[in-house]
């Protein structure tokens, strides 16, 4: 026999609310990577070698 729960909170509702419009994940990771390719640095090796920082705390 199925049990019914009176106004029980699901596990997600006990947690912190997500803010703003929840966008459905319309694209796959591959589609996203295709998009990202357009903004990636063209000379990765030079870019990585050029990123030098001083030590901080």
């Amino acid at each position: 026999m199925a049990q019914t729960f009176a106004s029980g909170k699901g596990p997600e509702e006990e947690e912190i609310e997500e803010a703003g419009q929840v966008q459905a994940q319309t694209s796959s990771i591959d589609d996203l990577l295709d998009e990202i390719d357009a903004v990636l640095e063209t000379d990765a090796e030079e870019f990585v070698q050029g990123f030098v920082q001083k030590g901080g705390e």
Partner: protein
Amino acid sequence: MSERVVGTETEFGVTDAKNPGANPVILSAEAVEAYAEAASIGEVVRWDYAGEDPLNDARGYRLQRANAHPSLLTDDPYRLAPSGGVDFEERPGEYERYMQRATSVVLSNGARFYVDHAHPEYSSPETSSALEAVLYDRAGDLLATDVMKLTEARGTHLVLYKNNTDGKGASYGTHENYQVSRDLDFDDIIRVMTPFFVTRPIICGAGRVGIGQHSEQAGFQISARADFVENSVGLETTFNRPIINTRDEPHADHHRFRRFHVINGDANQFDVSTYLRLGTTSLVLAALEQANDLRVEGFALDQDDVQTAWDVSHDLTLTRPIQLRSGKSVTAIELQRMYLQFVRENLNLTPADERVCATWARVLDGLENDLASVASEVEWVGKYLLLNRQRERLGVGWDDPRLAAMDLQWADLRPEKSLVSALDRAGRVKRLFTPEQVREAITNPPTTTRAHVRGRAIGQVPQVVKASWTSIVVDDPKIGKLVRIPLPDPTDAGSPELHAALESGALALVDLFNQS
């Protein structure tokens, strides 16, 4: 007991996109100066150094100034904070004004933006919960975006990064601050927090391409900072970094409070990762404050703590066993669950506490059973799944520079370049705040701590010329001297009389305090 004063500090990576050899100290100063001028309503509000004491060690001694490594001396010669009423100081002369470059500015949201060593740093205002701290941490990142636009307009192609290493041996920090009871024995803090900290990155690490301080070994690891942890307990923050930092500078009544300063967390851009990093730590500290029967030996490691931090970070399977002194052998996930249990057993949880615990439990389950289910919340998982898929597409190993480049672009705070922004636009980052809320948090302070007083004073009273965590300094020609107004209590958000006085201006404010 989720109400406690919490704050974060972010040191940004800094480059000039058109000039790789640019001096980072000058770049950082330019960044701060540009922002300071744009944000100020009167003179730039500088830092009030009276009262800072970075050489005080929590283990009960004070490092002799002459013996301190220069990097510890972040204060100017200081004067003792006043015990009540106001304090007077001579107005600076022309030369002093000229020498006070704007390398530090205090903002109308109560935060501090300044040059720390060779990095711009954002030190958030005091907040009263982990969730609020996430908002004000995000505000710092949005501020960084504003700074880059301002410097671009001046002709400098400044880029700021929210990360912790250049992969070439340098590391810079993302710090957390928790106000705890002075009654809490520091030895207990060391014993209980150490195993917690070495395993905490599994729920909030930012992920990193490269293993070792110089990325000498190819691979991907969970924590960006772990390889730079080298010591168990210590005062240093720029070398020989400890798991437990002993800095004892409460900026509050030191008989009642300690400010626990945590230096080995990763810089996070994912809201839930920051939320868990701060929320879980806050709860474990609260449980420690409440616990009568301290089963501290239950958590104690039977292996080197620093080595454990490295091992946990390098194990993406999350299955490597950790030996405990009790004889048990647990995974990092299981050890984190023990802390969750400790929290549940020792605290009367508020609804806000419950939400942290529910998220903590669900994320641990996700890490154990279905990694993809937490990809929008746990930053290292999001980064790993994205970069590993790219690695497969390219048919290369982790040593390919294109992957290290993506790791850097992950942290690039320019929205058009940032990989996190790309994920965000695709709905792949769980956000706890809207962009509008984050925008407001750059100019409006939290209302539950003394940041409310500091921020509103700076935002409304042009005669405020200096501020610190514990003071605001007013310069009104009618008074003729600088007036230092103390803010000794982090939880005091200001009486209605005080806020009314702020509306009336500098003289009303000084009068209010001079009466007490």
